[in-house]
């Protein structure tokens, strides 16, 4: 059955945190509760769940790929048509190191950015309830629950002092 999402907007962070607890008491697991804010609050400010991210993996993979790419570009382009220049060896390492280095960094950064988008689940269709006042500083408590339970959640949220609630 379909998943419904309920959004409660709160003026004050402590209220929002309390609302989160109240919702938890109705049997909603903490994985279904999200706190929408307009700026990064310090972690655990709402007693919310730990977020586990594996972002650090991406730069290593990317860097490795970039490094290999660098080796291939530098060595192959020199081997393809071996021309002596200035008595330098055909495969001269010091210059190759420079380009390999750039390749490594480029790969690492590209993969990191991909990692950020992937880990934060972007781009993302906004089917959940959302309110523009979140970016005005209101704190949204977003609860996703199966159909039929949304009214109850809604009441809980408004009882714990929500300025406004939405269901989608």
């Amino acid at each position: 059955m379909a998943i419904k999402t309920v959004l409660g907007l709160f003026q004050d962070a402590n209220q929002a945190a309390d609302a989160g607890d109240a919702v938890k008491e109705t049997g909603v697991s903490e994985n279904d509760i999200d706190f929408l804010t307009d700026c990064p609050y310090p972690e655990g400010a709402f007693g919310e769940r730990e977020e586990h991210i594996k972002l650090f993996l991406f730069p290593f993979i990317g860097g490795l790929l970039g490094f290999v790419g660098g080796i291939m570009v530098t060595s192959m382009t020199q081997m393809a048509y071996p021309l002596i220049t200035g008595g330098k060896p055909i495969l001269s390492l010091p210059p190759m190191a420079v380009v390999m280095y750039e390749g490594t960094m480029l790969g690492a950064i590209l993969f990191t950015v991909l990692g950020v988008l992937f880990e934060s689940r972007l781009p993302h269709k906004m089917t959940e309830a959302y309110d523009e006042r979140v970016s005005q500083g209101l704190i949204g408590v977003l609860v996703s629950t199966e159909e039929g339970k949304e009214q109850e959640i809604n009441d809980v949220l408004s009882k714990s002092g929500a300025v406004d609630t939405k269901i989608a």
Partner: protein
Amino acid sequence: MVVKIEHKWGMVVDLDKCTGCQGCVVACQAENNLPINTKDLFMQKRAFEWIRIERYWEGDFPNVKARYLPVMCQHCGNAPCEPVCPVYATYHNDQGLNVQVYNRCVGTRYCINNCTYQVRFFNFWEPTWPERLQNQLNPDVTVRTRGITEKCTFCVQRIRRAEITVERRERTKLNDKTMAARNFMPACVQACPTNALMFGDQNNKEDKIHGYFEELHGHDGHSDSRGYRILEEIGTDPSVIYLKKVDQFKMEHSESHG
């Protein structure tokens, strides 16, 4: 059928014989389709002289000496200009020549900056010739367009001709005599009235110049003979040997790094 030896072309300039007559300059101008050095080209300091005669005054009046130093591309073994070209427009070919690929050059002018001897030239303008000189252009040599670099080639077109006629057709050895006999010497060498310029094959025992290079390398650079190479201490390993004037004056730059 003769065994084809690996050529390594080189030149020897005997400064004792050079009178600074600029004949080589004119010959080069005519042979290699250089643009006409008009007055304002000179004023812009953009004149083309693939070979130039540097003139230095030495001593005070009355015993003043004029020094002449013909400088052309030295076709360095470790040419500084080669590794810095981003597009391989200049590289070292298997005959010891430092060659320039005109249609690959993009004109970064890095090679010119990095040339120790100032013998690379950049086409700032589209080269043009007056009507009456159109027919004088040498068909063996490309006419360069604007925005690319050019330089002395040791008259590579003549060397190629020599290889074709002498080595392939006549199946005889290619050395300085056979080349001289058929006027396959570089234009400057051919034109020099005092034979101050000698051209030949460094690897070929029979060639006149071979001995000078032997001598030079034998005494690893610091030979007490007349032979020396200009700005050798940069480590460019040039293929042009200059024979020192022997008198009480010393060339300015031979001590300049002391």
